[in-house]
């Protein structure tokens, strides 16, 4: 089985994982928290890219599955007292099922209507979370999530997150580089042509959507425990917009791009908030730069610089 990963990329991944393993050794609460959050968002962004970068559709409502994963996990753990081993997978499966439901209808539509429907659905999830106070806590949020004892403290939780996210990333990587993944890229590149080589493009896009939703659910489920609470903001369109920007900032045409974008945006936001309260403007300017100058994101920029300085192939 010859999975084609370049040695440079593989080495970088291993180094990153090793560095992450060492983070708790710094004993810096700030750094551990930061790393946990970045890991969650990296997975969230990677999952969205299965839809955008790999199958060529746009979702404005990816936060829905993040929120469903979060709320489901929180509710099962806390309200129903399920052990993590059942609650977590159940939450993830629920996200996947929701994604399947939406995908069935979305894939019938083209571009803009597809995006609108994903947005409508995620706002519906938001509205339900908002109104269904008895179950979700409404706009006060679902607070006091029961976190299992073995990951109840900062460092064990970090390693738990690291393990789950790493396994998820490896799985996503394998999927995206499999025969399925390559065919999905063809669907993105030329929808008509993909049909004319015998690919059921609607089914492919649907499966991609479900995969994306499932892993967003994983990210959401982790975050619910980390945050010890789930809030309606998780389903709001602003959350979907943020993860979309992360994906694009990093680079939608590369597998790891979105993870890089998640880290970059997250750090930029933290940094910007130290100096100004106008993060939206900063974000807007970043977006303008991406859109006008760097549509291929940071990874695209890196590739261009590499060609420039190393001269050709």
């Amino acid at each position, binding site marked *: *089985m*010859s*999975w*084609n990963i370049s040695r440079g990329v593989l080495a970088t991944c291993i180094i990153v994982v090793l560095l992450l393993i060492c983070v708790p050794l710094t004993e810096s609460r700030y750094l551990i928290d930061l790393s946990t959050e970045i890991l969650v968002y990296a997975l969230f962004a990677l999952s969205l890219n299965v839809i955008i970068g790999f199958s060529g559709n746009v979702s404005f409502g990816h936060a829905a599955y993040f929120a469903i994963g979060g709320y489901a996990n929180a509710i099962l753990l806390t309200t129903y007292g399920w052990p993590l081993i059942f609650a977590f997978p159940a939450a993830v499966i629920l996200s996947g099922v929701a994604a399947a439901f939406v995908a069935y209808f979305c894939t019938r539509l083209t571009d803009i209507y597809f995006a609108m429907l994903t947005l409508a659905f995620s706002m519906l999830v938001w509205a339900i979370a908002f109104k269904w106070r008895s179950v979700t806590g409404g706009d006060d949020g679902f607070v006091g999530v029961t976190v299992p004892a073995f990951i109840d403290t900062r460092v064990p939780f970090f390693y738990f997150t690291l393990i789950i996210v790493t396994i998820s990333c490896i799985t996503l990587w*394998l*999927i995206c*580089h*499999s*025969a*399925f*993944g*390559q*065919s999905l*890229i*063809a669907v993105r*590149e*030329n929808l*008509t*042509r*993909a*049909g*004319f*080589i*015998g*690919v*059921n*493009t609607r089914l*492919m896009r649907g*499966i991609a959507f479900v995969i994306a939703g499932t892993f967003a659910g994983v990210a959401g489920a982790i975050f619910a425990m980390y945050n010890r609470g789930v809030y309606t903001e998780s389903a709001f369109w602003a959350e979907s917009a943020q993860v979309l920007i992360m994906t694009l900032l990093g680079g939608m*045409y590369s597998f790891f791009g979105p993870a890089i974008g998640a880290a970059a945006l997250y750090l930029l936001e933290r940094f910007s908030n130290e100096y100004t309260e106008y993060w939206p403007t900063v974000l807007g300017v970043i977006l303008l730069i991406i859109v006008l100058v760097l549509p291929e994101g940071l990874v695209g920029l890196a590739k261009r610089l590499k060609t420039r300085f190393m001269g050709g192939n």
Partner: protein
Amino acid sequence: MTVLNTSNLTIDFGGFVAINNVNFSLEGGEKHAIIGPNGAGKTTFFNLITGHLKPSRGEVSFKDKTITALAPHKIVKLGLARSFQRINIFPRMTVFENIQTSLIARDNKHFNFFSPGSAQNREETRELLELVGLEDEFAEIAGELAYGKQKQLELAISLAENPTVLLLDEPTAGMSPQETSVAIALVDEIAKARKLTLLFTEHDMSVVFGIADRISVLHHGEIIASGSPDAVRSDPEVRRVYLGESDDAAA
């Protein structure tokens, strides 16, 4: 033996009847050209056959199986492939990947999550690239190739499906006379080697009369003549449509 057949095929775009009651049949093993002035409906006709458009009336059948308005990916699986007038390739993939992905789809491996994409059908991809003369460009990004080479890639993708019937929509569009004769020689050779039935549209008359066994003439969405090259060449209606029109243009 008839491999492709349309009966009473019609499409009405809200008042504009682009294809009007076309009864057409394609015989196995032949090289059949469809010619006609611009706007005659040649591409529309192809789109109707290959499931890209749904007809308002009429039927299309392929090897005795009704395929009217069947989804394109299902028609392809039956053995009918097409190339496009405007280049329709996978621009950001390499030439190699373009072919490889087509072969993956042909073998129905596109739902396979467990095998790496890059390892599939490598040998066969190489062979196909050699067949169309693109073996040197295998690592190039498809969208950056020269136009003529993109056309070759276009052809290779259509062939990857192992079709029995190949529809070529203006295969030499935009080519110089030299490129045209090279491309057509290639198509002819491949058709012979793989025993393909060929249906193609063309403007270049030298191509048409060079390799076609039979010619059909499409005008305003209707077939006004169909037969051997000599028969069509001397058909008065055809002459009127072509020569009559060029007389008007000159005036």
